[in-house]
């Protein structure tokens, strides 16, 4: 056993991508197992690996962890990315949960029917520019610090960075009204572990394509 965390998911972003980001940001190397067939997934269930019959699964520190939030909370706690006290943790949790609502829209986007895609893209744009980005723009402007919480790099910064890039892939000019976020994005890109993760050859996965959607539907078919 390598001692490294081992991630089991499909070979694509989905719900595992935020976990990859967080581990990478923490400078933690990890192994990955990719599900390609329904049989592989059914076997995982049969062998008792998946507490609620679902992935993501992360084997870490002797635990078979499931539930994305639980996994990320554990990683954040372990690698000191969850604030210095309960109040900082509360702020980080609020920010992460808000961003996660936005990421959920992006997560589901590839699976929406063709005639709903334009409407869904409009919703993502509306939420990003009217609900989520303004919050973080204001937070950064008000305290003038580099990081969202407690003047220290945290899970919240990683999650926001991931979200900014994911939205930009769909809407390249989305940051045009958000100067603080533009600066934030540049600063985060230069954090050494994040810089490494953004380079080709890292475990970062590309945007979901038709093949990924097809694999998801095939593996999780009832």
């Amino acid at each position: 056993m390598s001692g490294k965390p081992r991630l089991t998911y499909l070979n694509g972003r989905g719900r595992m991508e935020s976990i990859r980001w967080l581990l990478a940001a923490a400078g933690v190397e990890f192994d990955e197992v990719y599900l390609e067939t329904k049989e592989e997934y059914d076997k995982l269930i049969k062998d008792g690996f998946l507490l609620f019959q679902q992935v993501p699964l992360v084997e870490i520190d002797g635990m078979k962890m499931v539930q994305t939030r639980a996994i990320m909370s554990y990683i954040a706690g372990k690698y000191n990315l969850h604030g210095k006290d309960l109040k900082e943790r509360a702020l980080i949790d609020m920010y992460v949960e808000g961003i996660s609502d936005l990421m959920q829209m992006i997560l589901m986007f590839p699976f929406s029917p063709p005639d709903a895609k334009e409407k869904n893209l409009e919703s993502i744009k509306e939420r990003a520019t009217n609900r989520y980005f303004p919050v973080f723009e204001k937070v950064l402007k008000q305290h003038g610090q580099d990081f969202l919480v407690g003047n220290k790099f945290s899970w919240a910064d990683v999650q926001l960075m991931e979200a900014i890039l994911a939205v930009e892939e769909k809407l390249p000019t989305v940051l045009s009204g958000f100067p603080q976020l533009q600066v934030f994005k540049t600063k985060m890109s230069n954090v050494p572990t994040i810089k490494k993760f953004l380079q080709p050859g890292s475990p970062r996965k590309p945007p979901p394509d038709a093949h990924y959607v097809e694999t998801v539907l095939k593996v999780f078919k009832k």
Partner: protein
Amino acid sequence: MSGKPKLYYFDGRGKMESVRWLLAAAGVEFEEEFLETRDQYEKLLQGGSLLFQQVPMVEIDGMRMVQTRAILSYIAAKYNLYGKDLEERALIDMYVGGTDDLMGFILMFPFLSAEDKEKQRAVIVQKATSRYFPVYEKVLKDHGQDFLVGNNFSWADVHLLEAILMVEEKKSDVLSGFPQLQAFKARISSIPTIKKFLEPGSQRKPVPDDKYVETVRRVLRMYYDVKAN
């Protein structure tokens, strides 16, 4: 200011109910402000109290907290219902994640059409009995302890009891194949703070009715055409 936490939500369960359960279980008294009109909601929005323009919102310890999971995590940690270390917290988070997903199938139930409600009732029972209840049944059977994690009362126990009671409201004999959960339900229900919360006159909210649905739709101007998940 009373010093008590203050909850801002509709006069009904929704996403706030788990917060009421947890505060009650921790023996913490709280106040509530119920959203009844669109005006009230817009006032809250304009006043900048709602970080992401949404409720639940809980004023607690000088913070205006939003995002149900963040609120629950804070309360759990503050009142020592979150395990003794990172590993126990991880287990609690996993278990709560499961019961949260299960309750997620019930959350939008009141907003469905009559036909979709029947289908969804079957889905709720199927998920409960084949995916979620067996997990907690096994956890309790394997360690033989009174509580889910670390032989200590925690958020996971409160959340599971809430989920069990909600599913039972949809099918009263749903625990018939789960003897451990039946014993668990009886045990946790008799914990003094929980027992008090389960009595009439507590701040526990009833099963959502048409009036609740109408209020939510009117105040938020949303959820008019909800499909089952």
